[in-house]
């Protein structure tokens, strides 16, 4: 029983970083209707900027991390404004290709600028301390990730519910033309959405980097976050979060009881099963188009 509880807790802990990536992807999917494959690299570049600010310029954490998130916000906005918006008569496939292109570009830039060596980012708390309750443990970094993920979910909920921009974003996501007719600057709203998405992804990156940093570090969390978002339903923010936790827990249970060797691919088996039996995801409302 202890073993089972430990696996579930570890799954929830690792699912938190997937949840942050999944949240970022869903935000963009709702705004631009494109699965965003540059999500990981929109977090990667800011994480390396944070490393540079801490290591090369010696800035304290309380300056370096906020500066990083502001940088991420602008990076996301610029990518939407300078690249995605320029696509002429875009279809979904074209947009996906554009995001993959941007992904390669940012990955190449990070590899060139910062090198391929592995490193670990300095962080205010130890990556290797843990809290032990009875026989069950959770590392302090995982605990922090869990708390931060829940906090960001709460902030996003309040933002979409009560802030003017948040309501405008929801309106734009639901019906862009109607929102534009109501005086909402939909282009600006889309740009802000990309900025917020990049900042949320960067939070995940900052919480992953204390263990190990390298140019490919965001690839796995991005894929698992995407898997979580698909499981939860690409248009549902709570769905992306629960989907990510499901992926994390299923991975751990599968690794513990069935096979560690195939643990990494089980997330994609879950995607296939969900898409076969509930194509819109577990938490999204099924959208029916009337003729």
């Amino acid at each position, binding site marked *: 029983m202890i073993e089972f509880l430990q696996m579930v807790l570890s799954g929830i802990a690792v699912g938190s970083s997937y949840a942050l990536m999944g949240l970022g992807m869903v935000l963009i999917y709702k705004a631009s209707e494109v699965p965003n494959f540059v999500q990981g690299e929109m977090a990667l570049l800011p994480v390396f900027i944070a490393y540079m600010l801490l290591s090369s310029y010696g800035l304290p954490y309380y300056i370096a991390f906020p500066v990083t998130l502001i940088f991420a916000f602008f990076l996301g906005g610029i990518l939407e404004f300078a690249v995605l918006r320029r696509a002429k008569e875009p279809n979904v496939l074209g947009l996906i290709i554009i995001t993959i292109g941007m992904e390669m570009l940012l990955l190449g830039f990070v590899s060139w600028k910062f090198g391929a060596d592995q490193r670990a980012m300095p962080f205010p708390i130890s990556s290797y301390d843990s809290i032990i309750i009875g026989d069950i*443990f959770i590392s302090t970094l995982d605990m922090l990730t869990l708390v931060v993920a829940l906090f960001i979910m709460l902030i996003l909920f309040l933002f979409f519910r009560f802030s003017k921009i948040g309501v405008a974003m929801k309106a734009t996501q639901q019906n862009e033309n109607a929102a534009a007719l109501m005086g909402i600057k939909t282009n600006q709203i889309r740009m802000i959405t990309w900025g917020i998405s990049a900042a949320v992804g960067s939070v995940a990156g900052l919480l992953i980097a204390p263990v*190990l940093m390298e140019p490919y570090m965001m690839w796995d969390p991005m894929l698992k976050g995407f898997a979580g978002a698909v499981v939860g339903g690409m248009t549902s923010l709570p769905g992306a979060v629960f989907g990510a936790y499901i992926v994390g827990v299923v991975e751990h249970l599968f690794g513990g009881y069935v096979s560690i060797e195939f643990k*990494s691919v089980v997330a994609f088996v879950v995607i296939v099963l969900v898409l076969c039996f509930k194509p819109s995801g577990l938490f999204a409302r099924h959208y029916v188009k009337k003729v």
Partner: protein
Amino acid sequence: MKKNLLSVFAVMVMILGLVLTASAEEGVTDTEIHIGQWGPQTGPAAPWGAVARGTDAYFKMINAEGGIHGRKLVHHYFDDAYNPAKTLAGVKQLQEDIGMFAYVSGVGTAPGLAVKDYLMERKIPWLGPSAGSRHWIQPPNKYLFNSYPLYLGDAQLLCKYGHETMGFKKFAIAYQNDDYGKQGLEGAQKQLDKYGLKLVEQIPVNVADTDMKPHIMKFKKAEAEAVLLFVGPGHVARLIGTGKAMKFNPQWFSTTTCGDHPLMMAITKGLYAGTISAAFGMMDPGAIGIGNKEDTNNPSLPLLAKYKKEAFDKFAAKEERWGMTFTAGIGYVEPFVEALKRVGRDLTREKVVAEMEKIKNFKGIMGNVSYAPFDPNDPLCRIGQQEVFLVRAEADGTSTILTDWFTTDFIPMEK
């Protein structure tokens, strides 16, 4: 008459030209020797790109000293991103567009296997592959000379030391799910069989895996006292870190691939201290003495100190890091350079092979390297280095020598 004489002269010049061209060795001119190499400069295996850059700096140092018998070494290395398809395409391009005399090093088992047949069918020498795989010597090939000690040997010595010196009985292993990791698994099993022991847990790690909690849970459940880590540096960092967080503190043992202690200490934030790893060179246990420390940033080996000053300081890029990966790029090709020197001015591939076969107990910055005349039934004729030793990582980034050189057993692949 005069016209006829001119025609005869022209034909003779053409025939002579053809004869001379036919006898000249591919990739060799009066002033140059063209040498090819592949390695990942981008992609997940890019940290190993330093191997090719180490070789490059070493060749530049040799050229600055006047070359070899009046010829400069022209080094052509390309980025294959650890993708075997790219390795093959790159080698074909180098060979068919420029024409290499030989290939050196080349990171990785899978990329190497992709080009092995291509090179061997054309009788192009390939010297010092940068991976300790049995595929390079079993079956042996006349033109392929290994220098990297096989991973099997690391496992043998680690288990021997762990059991005989430290008294451990419960060994477990985390192994990369490929040729490298599986060799470690096999070497460990064979060595433990000698003591009547079995691995209490053996867990495969896929290259894409990032979460090590399930692995550590299994090790904990098996109550492993000693864990062998036949994985890459990143996974070593994750495993030791997760182990610390889960209050699982066995004796960690690692391989030559994680022998760069300053690097490992940096990426584990100091947790690598106390880990015992195998080493294939860059220091000499005999000269330093068992129990004494070595700082790889300030090498005591005179030859390595020379390379740091003459190759790294002068020819490496500003952002390059002096470390085991960089220096390994030098160590793998030292026997080849020695053979080039021994051949002399009249350079051919066959003569290089003949001189390589005469190399006995050659000592550069790695262990003793020996070859023997080609025997299709004897893998050892191409094994090169068979000895490794053990070091312990210390908190200040130095390494304490734990054993003398140990000659490992070759374990043939089962058919």
